[in-house]
């Protein structure tokens, strides 16, 4: 009888202890769950905050570039167009009030025509610099060719290129983005890298459009220099995102800049 009891007691003890252990284990498990949850959620919040900041930076870059462009346009309009129109106005007034001789009359007339032509060509040039008409009408291939020709004739830099672009492969907006990226890269190479030779390839490879860019300028490293360069890169980044593409850029001092864009 006693034996039975003590055996029973043992069993009771065992059961109680195992339940307590189970309780302990499950509480520990829950605590583990909730602590790791906290950590994971904190990490995700950090990631989101970082992504947000990046977006903000890009928007800021876009706005600043926009304002700079506007300033430049205003300047160009003022310097090239306004002043020339002023001259034309003065000359025209002169024609009316000037009491000129026939010879002087013709001279002023010729002047007006000359300055008008200049103003017209400046206006065309400004418009073309802003948005080449060729891009709209003849597509990306021709626009890039023309851009390269312009630079080559200006002797500022020599661009060697191999372009293989199926007509209208990208949409009009996307073509514009690619064009702007190329413009920006070339501008950077000339202004900051002081490059004299650029190699630009735009080919179709493995079902992707690959733009590879290589110049012989001074190159740069991340922390250097003006806001402008940072801005330009950010704008390129925004455009790359809009294109759903991948962009890498490498540069070493005095070894130039290499960039790769895959769409």
């Amino acid at each position, binding site marked *: 009888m006693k034996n039975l009891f003590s055996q*029973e007691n043992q*069993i*009771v003890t065992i*059961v*109680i202890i*195992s*339940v307590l252990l*189970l*309780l302990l284990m*499950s*509480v520990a498990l*829950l605590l583990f*769950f*909730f602590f*790791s*949850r906290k950590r*994971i*959620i904190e990490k*995700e919040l950090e990631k989101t905050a970082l992504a947000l900041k990046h977006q903000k930076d890009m928007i800021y870059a876009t706005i600043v570039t926009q304002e700079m462009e506007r300033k430049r346009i205003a300047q160009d309009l003022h310097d090239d167009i306004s002043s020339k129109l002023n001259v034309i106005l003065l000359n025209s007034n002169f024609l009316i009030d000037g009491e000129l001789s026939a010879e002087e009359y013709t001279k002023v007339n010729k002047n007006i025509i000359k300055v008008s032509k200049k103003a017209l060509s400046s206006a065309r040039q400004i418009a073309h610099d802003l948005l080449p008409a060729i891009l709209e009408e003849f597509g990306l291939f021709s626009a890039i060719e023309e851009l390269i020709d312009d630079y080559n004739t200006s002797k500022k830099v020599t661009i060697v290129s191999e372009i293989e672009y199926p007509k209208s492969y990208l949409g009009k907006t996307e073509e514009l983005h690619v064009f702007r990226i190329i413009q920006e890269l070339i501008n950077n190479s000339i202004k900051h890298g002081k490059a004299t030779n650029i190699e630009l390839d735009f080919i179709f490879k493995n079902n992707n459009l690959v733009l590879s860019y290589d110049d012989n300028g001074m190159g740069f490293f991340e922390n250097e220099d003006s806001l402008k360069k940072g801005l330009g890169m950010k704008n390129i980044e925004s455009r790359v995102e809009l294109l759903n593409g991948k962009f890498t850029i490498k540069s070493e001092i005095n070894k130039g800049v290499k960039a790769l864009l895959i769409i």
Partner: protein
Amino acid sequence: MMNTKILIYIGYLFLLINVILYFISRRNKAMAYKVLYSYLLYTSVIQAYSHVLATQSINNIFLSHYYFVGQFFILSVFFFKTLKNRLIKPTVYLLILMVSASLFVQYFINPSIYFKFNLFEILITSIPIIIYSFIFLVQRISNPEKKFNYFISGLFIYVLCSTLLFVAGNISSEIKKVIWRANNILYILFQVLIFIEWYRNFRKKRLINLN
């Protein structure tokens, strides 16, 4: 003796408080909340009925079947609604089917066990709940959603430990008292967690229906 009675009554009290609170906040709540509420309601009905029978000294063991099976069904619906995985829905269906079938067969073969504690029934209705709760908690690790965390934590602990208690409960009458007291304590803890759940997540009216 008195001690046990007090514990039991405290358990009833907390259950009742929770039923009332969840009833009060039932407006504008998603389906999962309503399932939780019906679970509480169902449990309190069974508790009340079993208490009534106990005071009249009538054998109320058969109510345990309704308790375990009902709990299994209602909570299966709850997890059906809250677990996020395309494998869950067919699994829940499958389990409900298997559990019902096996219990049906068991009672068909041996109807007399209706008036006794059924160990097999306890196990096959509780173990799925433990597994579902575990999956729920795992899914909540990377999810900032707070609803039902306390409830499921309590459910997990309670069903895990009480299942062990019930399974060990039939060994002898000495054990029975200890087991039932332990069960009462755990049950009170469970109800406290359900209260905390209500207090933290469901007290205020929800303005946006996100669930």
